[in-house]
């Protein structure tokens, strides 16, 4: 297997719904072992772009060339009807047949292995988010798409989960597309940043993107300064319970 296999490629792709373009002219590539982040204001088409990559939405223009064998998705929002009794263990298995070890392993990774037999409806927002991530990584995908994966997770948990995402990209050697508002993580850990506002405003390595005038126009001068401050190396990591390990 060559190191940088191309997993998915969009060529000038666009989605047209209710007489307007949700996104247009999107070209991007995700390779194995790469973390690509989408940033942009609300309604800028981040989720739409992710859905094109995942073949949930058909493009009305341009091409999607998929090359990934197994894709996994952590959607931004998911509502499970109360009428369906569903435990975490049932939810883990909805799209793939996993054995108990695989399920427990990934739940341990996201710190929610104790919730295996709990009803999905009884979980808190943060717990559910961790279960969603665990489900996606349990099937060992080669392309993982995460749409604001840590929403509702407490601060320490957020850091641990972002570290986990970084870890996953290395261990599974999978490609990751991440939609995130956490500029700290985006700028310090990802390989390629795409700044979106209905079209691609600018893209490139994090350090280049923050200097781009288009980026500054969207996010403001202030933000770009804060970010350069954030570009530092951790000498420790945070565990799920908030404790620090070297």
């Amino acid at each position, binding site marked *: 297997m060559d190191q940088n296999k191309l997993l998915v490629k969009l060529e000038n792709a666009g989605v047209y719904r209710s007489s307007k373009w949700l996104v247009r002219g999107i070209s991007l590539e995700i390779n194995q072992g790469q973390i690509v982040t989408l940033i942009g204001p609300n309604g800028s088409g981040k989720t739409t772009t992710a*859905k094109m990559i*995942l*073949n*949930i939405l058909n493009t009305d223009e341009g091409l999607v060339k998929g090359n990934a064998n*197994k*894709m*996994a*998705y952590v*959607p931004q929002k*998911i509502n*499970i*009807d109360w*009428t*369906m*009794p*569903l*435990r975490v263990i*049932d*939810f883990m298995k*909805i*799209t*793939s047949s996993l054995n108990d070890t695989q399920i427990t392993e990934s739940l341990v990774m996201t710190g929610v292995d104790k919730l295996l037999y709990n*009803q999905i409806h009884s979980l808190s927002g943060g717990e559910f988010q961790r279960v969603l991530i665990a489900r996606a990584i349990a*099937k060992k995908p080669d392309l993982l*798409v995460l749409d604001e994966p840590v929403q509702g997770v407490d601060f320490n948990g957020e850091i641990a989960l972002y570290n986990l995402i970084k870890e996953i990209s290395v261990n599974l050697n999978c490609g990751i597309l991440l939609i995130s508002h956490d500029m700290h993580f985006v700028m310090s850990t990802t390989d390629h940043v795409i700044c979106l506002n209905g079209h691609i405003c600018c893209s490139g390595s994090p350090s280049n993107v923050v200097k781009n005038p288009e980026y500054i126009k969207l996010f403001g001068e202030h933000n770009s300064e804060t970010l350069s401050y954030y570009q530092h190396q951790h000498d420790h990591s945070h565990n799920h319970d908030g404790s620090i390990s070297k």
Partner: protein
Amino acid sequence: MFDDFFMRALIAGIGIAIVTGPLGCLVIWRRLSYFGDTLSHSALLGVTLAYAFSINISLSVFIISGTVALLLLSLQKRTKLAGDSLLGLLAHSTLAIGLVLIGFLSSIRFDLMGLLFGDILAVTIEDIFIVWFGGLIILGILFYIWKSIFAATVNYDLAAAEGMKPDLSNFIFTLLLAGVIAISIKMIGALLITGLLLIPAATARSLSSNPRQMVILSILVGIISVILGLFSSLELNTASGPSIIVAALVLFILSLISFKRSGALQK
């Protein structure tokens, strides 16, 4: 054993309950009860056409309900009318067309009550064959697409992204729903079929903690409802369809009481 009309009704009814159990769970999970209503209302048109052209009732109902279902799926994508308005529109217009056609077919004697509410006396050996053979086909296909339809029920985007082909399984599921209406219309009647889909599944919900349990329980509740309903229909000389639904309702109320006692309603 098949000589006795009551035994025939019992055997056909149990067959129907086995099929409505899992399909009813999906109808509840997917919030499709009005969809089921629309399909069963359109079934009356199917019955009328069956009499007009002397073809098998179940076949004709399946064709009409299936067509309405597919029409509905495509209209939902094309019009801006809200889903429930669309359902009401199709339900009542097909019901009305069916009733108008009955007016034209004055030469044929109709048992309208039987069509709307089911007729225990009308179950023939041929009907038993249709229920069990048709039911086995429906269950077989449902078993085959279960993983996909279940994933799509939990979340469409997840299912689509992870290769579960939710559109295909939605399409098949819709036809299966038309199929279950077709095999049960004679027993339960056009107006009450949705009741047999919904009530046993709703009863099972409060007693189960995972999807498989809910499916099995709703089959059991359905079977008990059929048995209780048919016996009371025989004893009290009431229509079979309504008696079965009332029995199901009694079981539902009992399940609520036990649910409350166990404290599961309190969060």
